[in-house]
């Protein structure tokens, strides 16, 4: 059934692509329309479900040197509670004495409860051709359990406020060979890069629309991509050096964007081109 669904999606996508090719000579607006149709066709079946299913198995299975599951892992809503947890992350965790996003918290549980070394828990944060990432699958599962839940990221603890303020500053930090900051591409309404629409992440509406649709299955990459990946790849294109997985800056920027998305219903894992 799943396969049929994918074939149907593939055919629709192909048809949309052919349509795009045929209208290339026509006005710009119609090319954008056809790409919108292609994106709509993609919504029909989302392979992110495969990552969600694998992540659920990983969440429930005993793992690591201590052979325990994530049942004792507290994502902020109590040990083992997954439902709605992602909609309230990042947040400050007393036991770790730091603000953590989901990926950082998963690594924390793998180290403190399952007995992995820090290095092993941090291994393979992003999948690639021929390599599967357990973190991506776990993220797919946990985030899927917040679908439809309103974003409600807390800003009560002093450290949460600090992370938000730092993320806000980092968002406009210019650097690199090209003088780019996050705001270069994501600081104005109605802009696009080539034909890709760019959300204005400095507005509530823009942050809500963008943040609630990550993680996402990227059709062009055949991979489920997490928010840590999204930040990492933005900085690559900014010509910055490589953002370290679960680094303090990555958490601060996530806090800034997630908090700005408060009030919107979370709607991921999504599917994107």
């Amino acid at each position, binding site marked *: 059934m799943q396969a049929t669904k994918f074939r149907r999606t593939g055919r629709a996508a192909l048809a949309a692509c052919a349509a795009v090719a045929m209208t*290339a000579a026509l006005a*710009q607006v119609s*090319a954008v329309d056809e790409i919108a149709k292609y994106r709509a066709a993609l919504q029909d079946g989302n392979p992110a479900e495969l990552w969600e299913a694998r992540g659920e198995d990983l969440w429930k299975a005993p793992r690591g040197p201590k052979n325990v599951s994530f049942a004792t892992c507290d994502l902020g809503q109590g040990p083992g509670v997954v439902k709605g947890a992602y909609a309230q992350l990042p947040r400050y965790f007393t036991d770790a004495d730091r603000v953590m996003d989901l990926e950082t918290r998963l690594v924390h549980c793998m180290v403190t409860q399952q007995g992995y070394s820090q290095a092993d828990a941090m291994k393979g944060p992003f999948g690639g051709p021929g390599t599967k990432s357990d973190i991506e699958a776990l993220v797919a599962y946990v985030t899927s359990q917040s679908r439809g839940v309103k974003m409600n990221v807390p800003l009560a603890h002093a450290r949460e406020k600090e992370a938000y*303020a*730092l993320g806000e*500053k*980092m968002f*406009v*930090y*210019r*650097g*690199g*060979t*090209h*003088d*780019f*900051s996050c*705001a*270069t*591409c994501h600081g*104005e309404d*109605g*802009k*696009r*890069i*080539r*034909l*890709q629409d*760019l959300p204005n992440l400095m507005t509530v509406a823009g942050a809500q629309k963008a943040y609630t649709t990550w993680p996402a299955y990227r059709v062009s990459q055949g991979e489920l991509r997490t928010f840590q990946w999204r930040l990492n790849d933005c*900085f*690559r*294109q900014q*010509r*910055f*050096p*490589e*953002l*370290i997985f679960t*680094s*303090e*800056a*990555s958490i*601060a920027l996530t806090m800034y964007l997630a908090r700005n998305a408060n009030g919107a219903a979370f709607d991921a894992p999504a599917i994107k081109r």
Partner: protein
Amino acid sequence: MRKHFLLWGCVGVFAAAVVGCATAQSDVDVSRQAAAVLKSSFKANGQAGLDRLDQDETQRLCTQYANKPLPKDVAEMIEKLNTASIKWPADGKMQGDWKNGEKIAQEGRGKQYSDDPKGPVGGNCYACHQLTPQEVSYGTIGPSLYQFAKLRGYSDETRKYAYGKIWNADAYSACSNMPRFGHSQILTEQQVKDLVALLTDPDSPVNK
């Protein structure tokens, strides 16, 4: 550079003294902390070293005023600083080959850590600008450059403006979104000339 560091050290000390035990951190403190946290959150990869996080005067000022109106005197200072850095061609010729210019405008690779350091480096102009009417996949972060010289005139002034703007956009508009392609050694002098040709040659499709 050293003077600049000293000055900021003093500002920091002064800000810390003023804030003292107040609960709210000053804006300057948060900015300094953000810069420090950024530096500990990246690793060098390929051609992208950690020095890419070090800001020059222009980047520092544009970051400082990112969320507030840029004061006129600061804008003028940035433009003056960047105007002085433009290296005009020794032979006085601004215009190269528009066909090469079109390739450079299309090329998005270059300077990313994922790019081959020996591979092509482009301007990626279409990411942000409309240029030739044949290319429908163009971005809108920058203005349309279609009919650039047809509208401005096929003159030395137009060519000089195009060359200077591509070399260092901040010389004309402080804190522009546009990279300083010549100044920051992204493109070579010849590549800048070829892009000038794409914009100003009467035979270029941009001017059709």
